[in-house]
């Protein structure tokens, strides 16, 4: 039994088996299974590099389709939708399995015990985003982004600059934000920055500045620019709840900069120590290669989604309903979101020891993308957060029921047990969309949630958080006032 537990292939094998099963479960019916964005990726998979369907956004998302195009072409397989869909499913399976193998190596290197590793794998993989959405809507670049982000982080921990370079280059044409993240890791290779907190006054200043930015940006986009959710089926802004929503957003932004509260990052020596000609040269080559490849593409349409304003305006989606982003990230990624809330102060200290490349990338993603309730846009970030949270948790000993609860919650939220019901497709619309009340938890993601789904998920999120709190702390009533005793202990360091 111990040999099985210690095997490097145990978790990857289990995850791969689930993925193979998921290949055969019912999927999104729209556009013959290609979906909406997926239809564009399909066109690239058929036409290749010079596809007439390339937009400015698709130009930076084409690599997985191009790989499928080449593999189908070499194999002599026709570029029909079913073949392309199956090819994406197989590619996604391979990538998730490889990701699991890299995660296993990372966990082993941190000497994590079996229970911590099991919980870690559950946190990272057993969620709707990785094991469900991947196969429900297979022709997407989300899974390649997930795998590449894990690979970049893995190579960073190994100190493999060449591999970060190559993975970052693929990332640039798969999931554009991976490119600056790879650059940051090459630029700041130090993996054990000493944690010394900055002064309290600076901490407050940074936190208040972030919260103020969140509120001002929200006001600007909602009231000054008059931005409203403008896509079909999106949840409209509830102005009655806006004050509560604004407080929630401000609180989230208040805690975001905790990840930068490491005095090392404010010390010039930290930067000088890592300044290196070879790495700067590597980054220059990376940027040049990206520009050269991009300029060889003929792009027919400018995508409105690829402008700075469009990216920043996503911020207003965080105000649609109170805690909508937390609710969605929990729905999509499971317990990582709740554990981050519970342990954020210590977890952010821990993350900051991985250097400015990691901390800065996470902070940048938080500020730019975290308020977008469409959680899949953060699939590259939650992979990092999942690994970091798992390693962090392995430093503590929790009660068995705590681990069991995390596994149970993630199992429930991954919704692997829930299958799409084609027979209720009477509400199918001409574009192949199933009327949203009938989609339930399949495409009720982000801004496309209905009021009911948001409300149910808010209740589930709150109850799950409460349950974890109760499991972490002994709450004593009695002679003394209400007290919280920590029901867990640190195991590695005093």
């Amino acid at each position, binding site marked *: 039994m111990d040999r099985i537990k210690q095997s490097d292939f145990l978790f990857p094998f289990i995850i791969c088996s689930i993925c193979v099963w998921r290949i055969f479960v019912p999927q999104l019916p729209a556009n*013959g299974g290609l979906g909406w964005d997926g239809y564009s990726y399909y066109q690239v998979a*058929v*036409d*290749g*590099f010079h596809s007439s369907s390339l937009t400015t956004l698709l130009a930076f998302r084409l690599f997985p389709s*191009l*790989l499928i*195009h*080449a*593999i189908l*072409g*070499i194999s*002599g397989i*026709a*570029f*029909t*939708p079913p073949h392309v869909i199956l090819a994406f499913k197989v590619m996604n399976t391979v990538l998730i399995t490889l990701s699991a193998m890299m995660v296993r*190596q*990372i966990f082993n*290197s*941190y*000497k994590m015990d079996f229970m911590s590793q099991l919980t870690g794998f559950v946190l990272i993989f057993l969620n709707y985003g990785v094991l469900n959405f991947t196969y429900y809507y297979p022709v997407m670049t989300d899974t390649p982004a997930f795998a590449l982000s894990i*690979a970049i982080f*893995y*190579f960073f*921990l*190994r*100190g*493999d*600059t*060449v*591999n970060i370079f*190559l*993975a970052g*280059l693929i990332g640039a044409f798969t999931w554009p934000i991976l490119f600056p993240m790879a650059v940051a890791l*090459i630029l700041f*290779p*130090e*993996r*054990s920055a*000493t*944690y010394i907190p900055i002064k309290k006054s600076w901490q407050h200043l940074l936190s208040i500045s972030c919260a103020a930015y969140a509120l001002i940006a929200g006001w600007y986009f909602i009231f000054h620019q008059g931005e409203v959710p403008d896509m*079909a*089926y*999106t949840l*409209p802004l509830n102005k009655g709840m806006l004050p509560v929503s604004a407080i929630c957003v401000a609180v989230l932004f208040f805690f975001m900069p905790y990840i930068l509260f490491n005095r090392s990052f404010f010390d010039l020596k930290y930067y000088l120590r890592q300044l290196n000609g*070879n790495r700067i040269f590597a980054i220059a080559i990376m940027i040049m290669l990206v520009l050269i490849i991009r300029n060889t593409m003929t792009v027919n349409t400018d995508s409105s989604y690829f402008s700075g304003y469009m990216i920043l305006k996503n911020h207003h989606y965080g105000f649609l309903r109170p805690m909508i982003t937390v609710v969605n990230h929990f729905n999509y990624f499971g317990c990582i979101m709740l554990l981050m809330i519970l342990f954020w102060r210590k977890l952010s*200290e821990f993350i900051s*020891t991985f250097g400015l490349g990691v901390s800065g990338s996470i902070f940048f993603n938080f500020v730019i993308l975290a308020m977008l309730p469409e959680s899949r846009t953060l699939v590259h970030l939650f992979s990092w957060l999942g690994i970091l949270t798992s390693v962090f948790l392995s*430093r503590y000993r929790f009660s068995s029921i705590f681990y069991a609860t995390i596994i149970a919650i993630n199992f429930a939220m991954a919704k692997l047990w829930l299958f799409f019901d084609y027979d209720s*497709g*009477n*509400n*199918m*619309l*001409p*574009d192949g969309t199933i*009327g949203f009340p009938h989609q339930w938890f399949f495409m009720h993601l982000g801004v496309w949630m209905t009021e009911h789904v948001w409300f149910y998920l808010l209740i589930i999120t709150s109850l799950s958080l409460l349950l974890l709190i109760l499991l972490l702390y002994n709450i004593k009533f009695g002679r003394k006032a209400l007290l919280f005793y920590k029901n867990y202990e640190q195991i*590695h*360091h005093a």
Partner: protein
Amino acid sequence: MNKYIMPEETVENKTNAEPSFKLNYSTAILLLVILIPAVYTIIVNLQAPTPAPDIKKDQAQQQTQASNTNNSANAIEAALKKVVDKPDYDSYISLGLAYYGAAKYEDAIKAWNKSIELNPKNAIAYNDIAAAYGAISQWDEEIKACEKALSLDPNFTLAKNNLNWAKSQKNKK
């Protein structure tokens, strides 16, 4: 002091060692992944410098078309059976969708009109009719159908989108 990181903790005991520029198996895999589409694209472009009929693509299109035709025929057959068994609003909506999928837009409109007779207050059928008119470029009819859908359900975003689309297409003419 750092209370978290121990020297032996990071992958392969390489804590803070100067990053390696050495190559390994992972590098080979990554290079392969990059080279496969790159080399294939170059070869395909060298072999076909002038636009030539892409047999593989034509074949794929034919297969897709054949597959779609079969699927559409099956869908229409199933929808017709459903209408016979249970001639209600939902059945006619499904029948319209089946016709729409087979690009038989006028039949689709007839089916959806029938569903409106059975449930005149449902905006979905009007929006579907609008989509069918849009498919045959009858913008005025599409606009009317969208407006009817919006009169029944002013928050029907899809109908709003279709209305804007139809108006923009009409103006282009």
